[in-house]
């Protein structure tokens, strides 16, 4: 493996992705991520001079909807997904910035 993922990096990635990893999982993740970066380096060896960056794997473009209301009030079904519900709203731990 050419790439080495540091403890700080795996810690940071964990914070960003809201994942709590134990030591064993951290080691495994470091190995996996290093392998992925090695693969990206391999791709980097290709000569892409003059090639437009790809924007999507699918060749289609322009999938649109018309601006017409098609959904009605379905708050009961939607709120059934809420871990906690209060006053017809999703109740979450107090969040303030």
């Amino acid at each position, binding site marked *: 493996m050419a790439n080495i993922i540091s403890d700080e990096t795996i810690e940071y990635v964990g914070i*960003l992705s809201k994942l709590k990893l134990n030591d064993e999982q951290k080691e495994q993740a470091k190995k996996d991520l290093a392998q992925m970066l090695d693969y990206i380096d391999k791709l980097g060896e290709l000569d892409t001079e003059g090639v437009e960056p790809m924007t999507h794997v699918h060749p289609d*473009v322009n999938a*649109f909807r018309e*601006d017409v*209301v098609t*959904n009605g009030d379905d708050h009961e079904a939607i709120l059934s997904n809420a871990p906690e519900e209060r006053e017809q*709203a999703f*109740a979450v731990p107090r969040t303030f910035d």
Partner: protein
Amino acid sequence: MSKEYETVIGLEVHVELATKTKIFCGCSTAFGGAPNTHTCPVCTGMPGSLPVLNKQVVEYAMAVGLATNCEITRHCKFDRKNYFYPDNPQNYQISQLYLPICRNGHVDIELGRVSVNQKNAGKEAGEIRHKQVRIHEIHMEEDAGKLIHDEWADESLVDYNRSGVPLIEIVSEPDMRSAEEVIAYLETLRQTIQYLGASDCKLQEGSMRADVNLSVREVGSTEFGTRTEMKNLNSFTSITHAIENERERQIDIIESGGKVVQETRRFDDAKGESYAMRSKEDAQDYRYFPDPDLIPVDISDEWIERVKAAQPEFRPAKIERYKEEYGIPDYDIELITQSKRMADIFEESVRLGADAKKVSNWLMVETMRLLKEKNMDADKLVFSPAHLAKLVELVDKKVINNNTAKEVFAQMFEDDTDPVKYVEEHGLKQENDSGAIKEICSAVIEANPKSVEDYKGGKEKAIGFLVGQVMKQAKGKADPGTVNEILKELLS
């Protein structure tokens, strides 16, 4: 202060688009629904749901881009901006980082013009200056839900009705140097976007939001200073205060040998000062990447031409044309053209034969008064130009007098009532039978010898009282001018 400082300002303006539905699903964007009644699996970020782009969003974004002299990106796409916050149910916001729909535009702003309101407050007009503010880019994105914080419980409530409402973000270059320039820029943007019908652009209600990026540097310096970003500015007044306040704060730091820290600050309107929200060190790492759920948008020449062809005449051009065509005072023109709806009513009423100044008076006086009284926007006016033209005609032909016309207009303002019908049905026609009016005049003269004596004794004003008495007896259905003439004739 020994050194002179220059303020450098760039703006990020978010505008909520006036579409009927959200950007990626068929939920209504109507404001004020009960919590979560305009939601579906897409705008609440349920796994497996798929977004589909609202075509109207692309059209509005293009229209704003073309109106602000931008290049339209022929092949654009959406990216995910990742962050965790409860108002963002997908844990990412769909936005455009790499290929925004519009780039490299500019807006021409006018400085030194004194608005009607300022003029009323006694402000003198200064020399008018022009300036160009460059636009870096405009991108399309989705709005977040709304968090309601419970004072007492240890929780926040989330309403996702606003989640997925389409926004465009207009990012300017750091070209502004004062609060005056910022306000002029925002006014120009607002006016342009309102004329396009792409948004109502209300700062107070959040359909237009401005974040101010500001730094200071010594006059003559070519390097930029460290900038801060200010949020939570919801009126032109608070934007002005925030700019002045932040300029002073940064100069104080520099003068006392300190360094400005790059950070996001929230402006507290009540206190008139700002405080740090988060600094660069704990700034979020958004890890943008292309959204695989949405395929790219290709914009053809033909599509651009179509949007271009549908652009209205904008306010600056309209003002110039009105000066040439209508012969009404500049003051009237400024007021009427503030809203496209009002300008449309004006033009059509005049086209239908009504006198320009008379139409303008109805718009400036009664319309403005009723709009203010009902706290309404001019673009919501319901009365038709045809009915306004008819009303002007009714007064011209002395079928009704001005006071009656005001009563009729109040009804037209409510529900676009046909004034001719209304006058007919309510028996408001003026008594134009001069014989009948003469009789009333004679009776009034008889009953008011004191006023008659005063008038004959040289008190010209005394006739006003007699006119009033006649009008009263005629139940307002007489023309005051005619009454005046008849009385004078009888008393001579």
